[in-house]
């Protein structure tokens, strides 16, 4: 099957990629663009580790056809740090141990990022709802909630 030229806007940069029509966003990000921060932890849509933002909304890159998000603003974990400074969420997850093994972390942070953009000062219930699709096997989620709270307080 012939490849098609996809134009994807990832972390503010335009990329032209020759990809199969049936390529998944997660594979394009990881294999074609080298953005391996987006993880895959299940066989499709069960764990949330591949969560990225598409036009600011959380999406599962493992269920998203790359061709379906042409022209949309795609953001991955690699795009959060600005001028070498970690984002408030990254800083908080680091300092408060919202991450242990780190594998669910990029997806978790992206889901939390989507939340804070919509709801800058979420209560605990809102945090739980926003992260409900992201499984973590290490933390028991306690310090993840603390991290999101701390980031919300730290954000301007």
């Amino acid at each position: 099957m012939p490849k098609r030229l996809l134009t994807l806007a990832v972390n503010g940069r335009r990329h032209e990629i020759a990809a199969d029509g049936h390529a998944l966003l997660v594979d394009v990000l990881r294999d074609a663009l080298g953005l391996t921060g987006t993880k895959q932890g299940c066989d499709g849509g069960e764990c949330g580790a591949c969560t990225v933002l598409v036009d600011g909304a959380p999406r599962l890159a493992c269920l998203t056809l790359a061709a379906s998000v042409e022209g949309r603003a795609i953001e991955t974990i690699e795009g959060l740090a600005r001028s070498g400074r970690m984002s408030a969420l990254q800083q908080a997850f680091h300092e408060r141990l919202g991450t242990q093994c780190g594998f669910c972390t990029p997806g978790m942070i992206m889901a939390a990022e989507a939340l804070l953009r919509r709801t800058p000062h979420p209560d605990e219930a809102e945090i739980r709802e926003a992260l409900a699709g992201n499984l973590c096997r290490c933390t028991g989620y306690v310090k993840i909630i603390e991290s999101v709270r701390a980031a919300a307080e730290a954000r301007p």
Partner: protein
Amino acid sequence: MRHEDVSLRRAPAPPTHSIGSRTPLVDGIEKVTGRARYTADLPLGPTLVGRIGRSPVAHGVIRRIDATRALALPGVRAVITGEDFAAPYGVIPISQNEWPLARGKVRYRGEPLFAVAAEDEAAAEAALAAVAVDIEPLPALFTAAEARAPGAPLLHENKPGNIEREVEQDFGDVAAGFAAADLVLERRYECAEVAHGQIELNATVAHWEPERERLTVHSVTQVPYYLHLTLAQTLGLDSSQIRVVKPFVGGGFGHRVEPLNFEMVAAALARAASGAVKLELTREEGFLTHRGRPATETRLKIGMKRSGEITAVDAEVVQRGGAYGGYGLVTILYAGALLHALYKVGAVRYRGYRVYTNLPPCGAMRGHGAVNVRFAFESLLDEMAAELGLDPFVVRRANLIEPPYRTLNDLQVNSCGLAQCLDAVEQASGWRERRGKLGRGRGLGMACSHYVSGSAKPVHWSGEPHAVVNLKLDFDTGITVLTGASDIGQGSSTLLAQVVAEVLLLPMARIRVVATDSALTPKDNGSYSSRVSFMVGNAALRAAQGLKRVLVEAAAKRMEVEPDDIDWQGESCCVAGTDRRMDFAQVVQAALADTGTLTVKGTWSTPPETQGGKFRGAAVGSTAGFSYAAQVVEVSVDEDTGMVRVERVWVAHDCGRALNPLAVEGQVQGAVWMGMGQALSEETRYHAGLPLAANFLDYRIPTIAESPPIEVTLVESMDPLGPFGAKEASEGGLHAFPPALAAAVCDAIGLRVRELPLSPDRLLEAIQARRREEKLRALRAGRPGADVPEAERR
């Protein structure tokens, strides 16, 4: 530039203390920025795609595997079978009965049969489909009872009755103990099989250099050293031909504490294809690889005095082990060893049976061997407390160990903070004021647990120290910690850096950790049985002390005083009582003079008295330091839907000394929560040997939505052998959750459930069975509709 002047112009930085401070992970920035490279992320250049062909049959004789058609396909570079390996493997040297790819027989559905390497995924898939397999089916055994039945077909010819290991242990006079008891109660408990569910998928990248005949393997392992040995054994290579590297690992929880078939398969594929092969497994394949906690049936009888004192214990444990040995014999031994060693008990009789079945092999999972027996033991204590009218806390306090103490089964206890743990959670939870007063549907339950800080005897006994750490200090004045300890998210690299920084009173910024590359770092047995903090921590401590001695001597020499005259302050040191001072860079320069790069080694081994007794299997359970934990769980129970909601957990963990309180809290919370998953919702299931829940929808790891606040109190009992007094913190908190939950449910609705998980369907069934029973009893008593007091409600 040489520092000739030994007096400083600017004020020296004060000494830095790292131990006891809440320290973010040294590799945390990589994790939160997405820069951390896990095995599947490594930029190792082009690789072939590996795939495993798996048995559709649960038990059968392999008649033929024909790869002719597959090998003729475009892009297919290699097809291998069990015949391509030199030897079987198994993590325990005396039970090596597994081949990386099945040979002769298959013993479970999903067992690797053959593997392919191809230029891309499509070619690999096509190759998988083109391999012809002929298997003659044999009768399959899916339960321990079927496998133990007389006349059952044997999975392994040398294992009569399909018993992998039968354990018989007797300590003290059990009959006399029961005779002396005021209450003897016997119950049966069942725990479903559970799996690790680490979020990172399994993956291995293997690179064979045909010109040099060398193999480099990057893999998701917790035990790179065992993997190294096993690769050599199964591939018939010399160890020196192999290099094993563990990159970032996305959790383990025991799934990866033994070398796993896919790791050897990737290596053999790379050799067969003369190149690099990347083998990534699906989530389903993770459940087929399994090595989780076995389904367990426990019959338990305890004798107790009115005071709560335990006079005797009689237990029989049957574990459905799956098709191969793995860690199985250790699991059944742990179940016996840690069943009773938490308390002072009068006498013990233990019978354990590890049974082979045609299911994916079980193995070690967080809290190895001790979780399901703890559920039984603590549940029965709770029930007996109620019968005797004793508070569950009183029963625990009646049986506390006072260190130093030698348990009945010859385990050495040098520190025990369980009493403080009990006090802490009793108070934090408001137990005395609140228990029994929360109203119908809400309840509190408690339980205790303990775990080892590393198995006192390593799996492979080579006579070497149990842990080795190298420190390198060079012209750059940075210290590199070289360790084979596998950081799998538990924070071991951070802890080792802290230990070294503390001894030298230096800031963490001076310390780098290079870990788990067999070409660079000293051998380490791996991250299992919570051994790293204790053992590798001790080795790091000794290495840092050694380095400090070298530095102090160099400073003394330079300032022409005796080493004892040097007051070491980290970033600087001075001659005690004077203002003669050198900064760290000057000291390093002085130390490097004549010798060059400094390399200092620290080692540690468990003292012989902590290595257990002389009876068969005595080594399992032995450790240099036991952690202790107590927890209280509060639940609300919906009696119409069977839904249990965990409102809050209070846990106190005796970790000896919290080297990094932030990380210890995180470990304890994670352990407690994993216990919650097992207690409430997690369960593997099989349909004629096929896993029904081989995904994260049907294997129900708790989400953030229903996960409770977990309040942690750290108890510091200062273990005499632990580094700075530290003991383990990653496992011991798990075991007490399931029994505390069952006790809380009983407190809430008066119903005692002795099966895990307490999933809504199971609980509702029990609630309805009780209703039927009550109705029946009321009818028999001639009082239809009358309220019958619930047997177990106080």
